């Protein structure tokens, strides 16, 4: 898929026979063995492999859970507890799946911020980036559907809130909401279709991942300095160099994953989800899972229901046009000192938005005397920066910013000992 001439040499009679009929080994060899990889990739580039690992993990544990789970409103909660209590190692499989979802999002956020920092969305990688955004959207949908399946209090009322979001859309909103519900409210029919879709979407993610990897192999990997490899000196073979580094990255990530699964499996969840769903009582604070919190804050920042929903979808939608909003000629922020500052503010701002999403809107985030700054106002500031970063700062900065000198090739900083460049 790399566009390079293939160097695959079938060794045995069978592989020669196979190669002339279905060159699948050639494809694997050219994509994952001989594929030239920039030699200066840092650890942030191992998150692609970590994400593939997590997707596999979620699909495998999910299939196993589906062998025991009952998608019925009266039995769903009890069947999850049956998995926790009676199924052999069911507790392990369920905690792997529940915490795996969180780890998947940890990894995808690192992966996205890495792309943002090193300009991995810029030409010729626009399609690669957009496919990534589609994967992210599918992940959000899958995570939401899966969380609903537990059918605890937070599952249920979270599903009520999210499905009502769609109801805010003009013209089609009411119909979409009714189709999601299959009735007059979130109920058994909703749970059934959520289960069906939750089983389907991961395979759609896997499909888009294949396209994502395909696009990656056509354009080649970006790298920390954002300069395309010019010669063989700039690259190493994917195997063993990238595979072993990815392997180490995955191993480290799994250590963190294990800590959560075995020693704080419920720390990322909500206590209310251990109470069976009750349509007549809403928990005091409806809080989504942590990975949706910044977007939940954006939703609540805007007092108008429709505008809030549009802002929330828009905050993700803007990522799709990012390749055309960034006007800078320099790809990597390593050579863009001003962009670095705005990027760091963006990350901190996203965390603050998450903090806002976690708290009741009218509580004081920063108390001053009797009054202070409420979370809803803080999230308004955060929302403004979120959009300004993409729509105003990115286009303008590319024009006005004075960038640092960019090396000609990946190897040149080392050859010329240009320490000034590496310091960044």
């Amino acid at each position, binding site marked *: 898929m790399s566009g390079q001439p293939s160097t695959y040499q079938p060794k045995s009679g069978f592989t020669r026979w196979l190669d002339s009929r279905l060159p699948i080994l050639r494809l694997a060899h050219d994509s994952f063995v001989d594929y030239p990889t920039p030699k200066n990739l840092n650890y942030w580039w191992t998150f692609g492999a970590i994400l593939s690992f997590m997707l596999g993990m979620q699909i495998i544990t999910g299939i196993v859970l589906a062998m025991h789970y009952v998608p019925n409103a009266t039995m769903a909660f009890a069947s999850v507890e049956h998995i926790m209590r*009676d199924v052999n*190692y069911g507790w392990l499989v369920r905690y792997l799946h529940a915490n795996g979802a969180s780890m998947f999002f940890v990894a995808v956020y690192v992966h996205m911020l890495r792309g943002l920092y090193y300009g991995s969305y810029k030409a010729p990688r626009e399609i690669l980036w957009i496919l990534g955004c589609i994967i992210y959207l599918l992940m959000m949908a899958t995570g939401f559907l899966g969380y609903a399946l537990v059918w605890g209090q937070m599952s249920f009322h979270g599903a009520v809130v999210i499905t009502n979001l769609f109801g805010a859309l003009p013209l089609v909103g009411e119909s979409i909401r009714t189709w999601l519900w299959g009735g007059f409210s979130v109920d058994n029919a909703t749970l059934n279709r959520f289960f069906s879709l939750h089983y389907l979407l991961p395979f759609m993610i896997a499909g888009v991942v294949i396209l994502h990897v395909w696009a990656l192999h056509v354009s080649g990997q970006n790298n920390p300095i954002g300069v395309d490899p010019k010669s063989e000196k700039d690259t190493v073979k994917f195997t063993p160099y990238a595979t072993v580094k990815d*392997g180490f990255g995955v191993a480290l990530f799994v250590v963190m994953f294990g800590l959560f699964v075995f020693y704080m499996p419920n720390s990322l969840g909500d206590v209310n989800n251990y109470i069976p769903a009750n349509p007549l009582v809403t928990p005091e604070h409806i809080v989504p899972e942590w990975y949706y919190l910044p977007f939940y804050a954006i939703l609540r920042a805007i007092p108008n229901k429709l505008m809030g929903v549009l802002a929330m979808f828009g905050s993700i939608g803007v990522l799709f046009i990012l390749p055309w909003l960034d006007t800078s000629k320099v790809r990597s922020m390593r050579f863009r000192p001003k962009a670095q500052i705005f990027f760091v503010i963006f990350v901190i701002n996203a965390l603050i938005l998450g903090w806002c999403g976690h708290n009741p809107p009218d509580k004081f985030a920063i108390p001053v005397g009797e009054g202070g700054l409420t979370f809803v106002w803080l999230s308004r500031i955060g929302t403004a920066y979120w959009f300004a970063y993409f729509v105003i700062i990115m286009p303008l900065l590319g024009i006005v910013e004075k960038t640092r000198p960019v090396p000609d090739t990946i190897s040149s900083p080392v050859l010329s000992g240009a320490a000034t460049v590496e310091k960044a």
Partner: protein
Amino acid sequence: MGDTAVHSGSDDPNRRDFIHIAALAAAGGAGAMLAWPLVQQMNPSGDTLALASIEVDLSKVTEGMQVVLKWRGKPLFVRYRTAAEIASAQAADSEPLKDKEHSKDSERHVVGKPQYLVLVGVCTHLGCVPTFGGGDYKGWFCPCHGSQYDTSGRIRKGPAPKNLEVPDIAVLSDTMIKVG
């Protein structure tokens, strides 16, 4: 220095160093460790195992009667045999039997109580439930493919390969037994 990314000879990174073999083995071990619970979860769960054994009160079964219970999702025949049935079963001990394993009648009825016979009511051919009182041997007759069992539940005629299964039985008291 830096002129080529990949050296050859003794520094060849593809060389099967101990550290690479160890790392690969560790990854393989981790995969196996993950596979273990994923396979184990397919075994019967705790609530299923809790129902794996039942206690049966034999005093509820009267002479010449058969009580059918549900045990492990299958029918369990608990039969109080008449003197004639016991006699015909014991007489058949010496006849050529198809399935000779533990096929003496004394090895099949409840220990010390020849009148009680407890059987898993599943034909050993393809799993149908045989009915009592049919066939040439006055034992059980399977309506699906015509297998015939005698009054000790032994296969005598038809396609079934084995005798009706006698489950594990523990005698708890004069009238109580535990099956499974």
